[in-house]
C-alpha cells in the first residue's frame, strides 16, 4: 500500500477518534459539575424499580442530583442472589442496595450491612408501623422499606377461560395451557415457593423431603412451561405471548389501560415480599447514601416514584395520594385476611439453599433428549475421524512405497 493511502486511513481514524473525544467532552459539559470534588454514589436496584423519566412521572435520580449535587450511578440486577453474589465476588462497593426481606436477613447475618442513623433519615418516620421491626430486621436498624406486594397470577383474559375465583396455583400445572405458562424466576426460591404452596407446604420449609417433593412438582411442570423469565412477564402476557404467569402484583395492569390482562391472588396462600433500602458495610459514602434514602422516602418523591414503579407503598400518606383505582384495588392492596394467609420468605441456612439450588438445576437440566442424539452423532463423527486417520496413514505408506 502506498504512503498516500496510509495517510488517508490515518486521517480517517484520527478524525474518528477526535470526533469521539469531542462527543465525550460535550457530554461532560452537559452534566453540570460545578462542585470540584463531586461525590458519586453507586445505587444498585432491581430492574424497573424506580421512576427514571421514561414515563410522565418525575425522574427520581435526576431530581436527587439536581437538588443535592450528588451524582447517582444507577445500575440494576434481576434477583436477590445476583445482588448477593455480585457484592461477594466482584467486591464492587455499592452505597445503596434494595434487597428483599430474606436477603436483608442474610446480609445482616453475614455482617454486610451498615447500621442506619435514623436521625439522618427523618422521612423514615412516615413508614407505616406494620412495616417496622419486621422479622428480617427485628430491631429495625438496617433497612427502610421501599416497596411491598404479594405474588399473584396474571392471566390473559382472552386465552384463559376459568373464572377468576377458580384460579389457584394448580392452574399452572394444567396441561390445557401447555407452552403458554411462564414462570418467573428471580430466584430458585420463587419457583420452589409456588410448588410448595401448591402442595400446601410452608414456603420456608427446611425439610429436605418437602423440598424434594416440590422438585418433583417442578419437573412435572417443566414440559408445560414456555420459559423461565424475570422482568418480562407483562411484556409477554400483554401481547399474548403467554396466557398465565405468576408475578408480583403491580399497579401497571390498572393504570396502563391494558384490558386483556387479569390478576388473581390465589386464595390458598401466597408469598408477600418487602424490598428494603439498605447500605452495605463497605460503602464509601454512607452519609450521601442516607441522604438518598431520606430523599426516596419523601412523600412527594415517593408518590411520583410509586406511580411509576407500580408496587405497593409502605407509606400511608403516599397511598392516599394515589389514584383510587389503585389504592382501593383489592388485588393490589389486599385485605387483612388475605395478608394473614401470606408468608414472607425467611432466610434459610446455607445448606438448605444449596440443596434447593441443586434440585432446581437438576430440574432445569433434566428432560434434555438431546444427549442420546448427541452420543449417536458423536460416535459417528468419531468413526469418521478414525477412518480419515487410517486413510491418511495408508496414503502416506503408498507414497513412501513409490
Amino acid at each position: 500500500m502506498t504512503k498516500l493511502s496510509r495517510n488517508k486511513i490515518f486521517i480517517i481514524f484520527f478524525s474518528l477518534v477526535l470526533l469521539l473525544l469531542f462527543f465525550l467532552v460535550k457530554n461532560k459539559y452537559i452534566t453540570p459539575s460545578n462542585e470540584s470534588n463531586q461525590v458519586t454514589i453507586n445505587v444498585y436496584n432491581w430492574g424497573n424499580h424506580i421512576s427514571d423519566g421514561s414515563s410522565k412521572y418525575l425522574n427520581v435520580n435526576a431530581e436527587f442530583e439536581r437538588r443535592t449535587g450528588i451524582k447517582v450511578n444507577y445500575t440494576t440486577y434481576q434477583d436477590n442472589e445476583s445482588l448477593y453474589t455480585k457484592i461477594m465476588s466482584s467486591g464492587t462497593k455499592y452505597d445503596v442496595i434494595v434487597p428483599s426481606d430474606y436477603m436483608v436477613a442474610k446480609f445482616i447475618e453475614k455482617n454486610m450491612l451498615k447500621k442506619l442513623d435514623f436521625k439522618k433519615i427523618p422521612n423514615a418516620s412516615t413508614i407505616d408501623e406494620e412495616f417496622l421491626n419486621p422479622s428480617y430486621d427485628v430491631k429495625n436498624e438496617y433497612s427502610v422499606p421501599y416497596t411491598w406486594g404479594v405474588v399473584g397470577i396474571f392471566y390473559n383474559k382472552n386465552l384463559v377461560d376459568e373464572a377468576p375465583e377458580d384460579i389457584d396455583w394448580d392452574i399452572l400445572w394444567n396441561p390445557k395451557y401447555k407452552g403458554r405458562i411462564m414462570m418467573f424466576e428471580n430466584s430458585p426460591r420463587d419457583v420452589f415457593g409456588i410448588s410448595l404452596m401448591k402442595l400446601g407446604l410452608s414456603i420456608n420449609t427446611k425439610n429436605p423431603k418437602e423440598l424434594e417433593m416440590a422438585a418433583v412438582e417442578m419437573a412435572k411442570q417443566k414440559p408445560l412451561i414456555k420459559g423461565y423469565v424475570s422482568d418480562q412477564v407483562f411484556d409477554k402476557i400483554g401481547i399474548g405471548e403467554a396466557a398465565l404467569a405468576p408475578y408480583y402484583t403491580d399497579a401497571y395492569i390498572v393504570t396502563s389501560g391494558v384490558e386483556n390482562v387479569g390478576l388473581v391472588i390465589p386464595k390458598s396462600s401466597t408469598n408477600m415480599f418487602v424490598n428494603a433500602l439498605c447500605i452495605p458495610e463497605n460503602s464509601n459514602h454512607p452519609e450521601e447514601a442516607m441522604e438518598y434514602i431520606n430523599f426516596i422516602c419523601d412523600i412527594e418523591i415517593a408518590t411520583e416514584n410509586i406511580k411509576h414503579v407500580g408496587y405497593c407503598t409502605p407509606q400511608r400518606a403516599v397511598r392516599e395520594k394515589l389514584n383510587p383505582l389503585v389504592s382501593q384495588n383489592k388485588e393490589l392492596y389486599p385485605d387483612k385476611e388475605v395478608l394473614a394467609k401470606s408468608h414472607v420468605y425467611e432466610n434459610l441456612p446455607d445448606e438448605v439453599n444449596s440443596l434447593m439450588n441443586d434440585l432446581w438445576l437438576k430440574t432445569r437440566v433434566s428432560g434434555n433428549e438431546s444427549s442420546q442424539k448427541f452420543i449417536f452423532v458423536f460416535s459417528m463423527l468419531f468413526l469418521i475421524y478414525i477412518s480419515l486417520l487410517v486413510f491418511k496413514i495408508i496414503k502416506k505408506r503408498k507414497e513412501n512405497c513409490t
Partner: protein
Amino acid sequence: MKKRIVLSPYLMWSVFFIISPLSLIFLFAFTNVDGNFTVSNLKNVFIYSDVFLASVWLGIISTAICLFAGYPLAYCVSRTKPRIQKILITLIAMPMWMNLLLKTYAWVTILEDNGLINKLISFFGIERLTMMNTPGAVIFGMVYSFVTYMILPIYSVLIKTDKNIIEAAQDLGANQREIFFKITLPLSVPGIISGISMVFIPSVSTFVFSRMLGGGTNLLIADIIDMQFLGSAYNPRLGSAISLVLMALVFIFMGIINSFDENKAEKTMIAL
C-alpha cells in the same frame, strides 16, 4: 538488547493478565474454601454432564449449518469479478460490526409468538409457530451471529487458490465437478478448519442466545458458569472447575481439528 526493551512490556502484561488469571482458575478449581487441595470440585462437574452434552450438541449442529451454508456462499463469491467480490464481502462482513446483543434482540422481535413472522403467516391463514424458547431458536441465533466467521476464512483461502492449477486441470480434461472435489475443496481445508473452530468455540461457550432466545429452558455450559459466579448458585470453585473442563474440551477439539491440516489453521487466522 533492543528486543528485550520492546518485548518486556508485553511479557509483563501477559504474565499478569494471561498467565496468572488462568493459574487462578486452576488454583480455585483444585482447592476448597479452606485452601486445601481437593478434586471434589472436578467431581461435582459431572452433575452437569447433561449440560455439557447439550452445549456440545448445539455447537456441533450450528457449526454444521454454518459450514453447509457458508461454504457454497464463499465459493460463489470467490467466483465473481473482483469488483463485485469486494462489495459482496464488505456486505457480508458488515453485520459483524453490529452489537451482538442488538442483533439477537432484533431476532426476538421477529421470532416471538406475536412477532413478525407469525404476523405474516397468520395473514396467510397458517397456524402460528412457536419458535422462541426452543433449542432451534438458540441454534438459529448462533448460526446468524457466527456464519460470517465461517464464510470469511473459507473465502480468503479460496481466492488465494492458484488459478493455474485449475486451468491445468481443465486442460487435462477434468470437468467442473472433478475440479471442485479434487482441487478446490482439498485446497480450502485450512479455511474450513479455521472456520469450524471460529464457529464452534464461541457456540459452545456463549450464554447470550440461551438467555435471550432460549428463555432459560435450555441451559448451556456458559449459563452454569455464570450461575456459579454471578448467579444464584454462588460457588466460584465449582465454576472454575467447570471452566477448566470447558477449556480442556476446547483444546482437545482444537487438537483434533488441527490434525486434519498439516499447515495449521492459525495461518488463515492471521490472513484474516
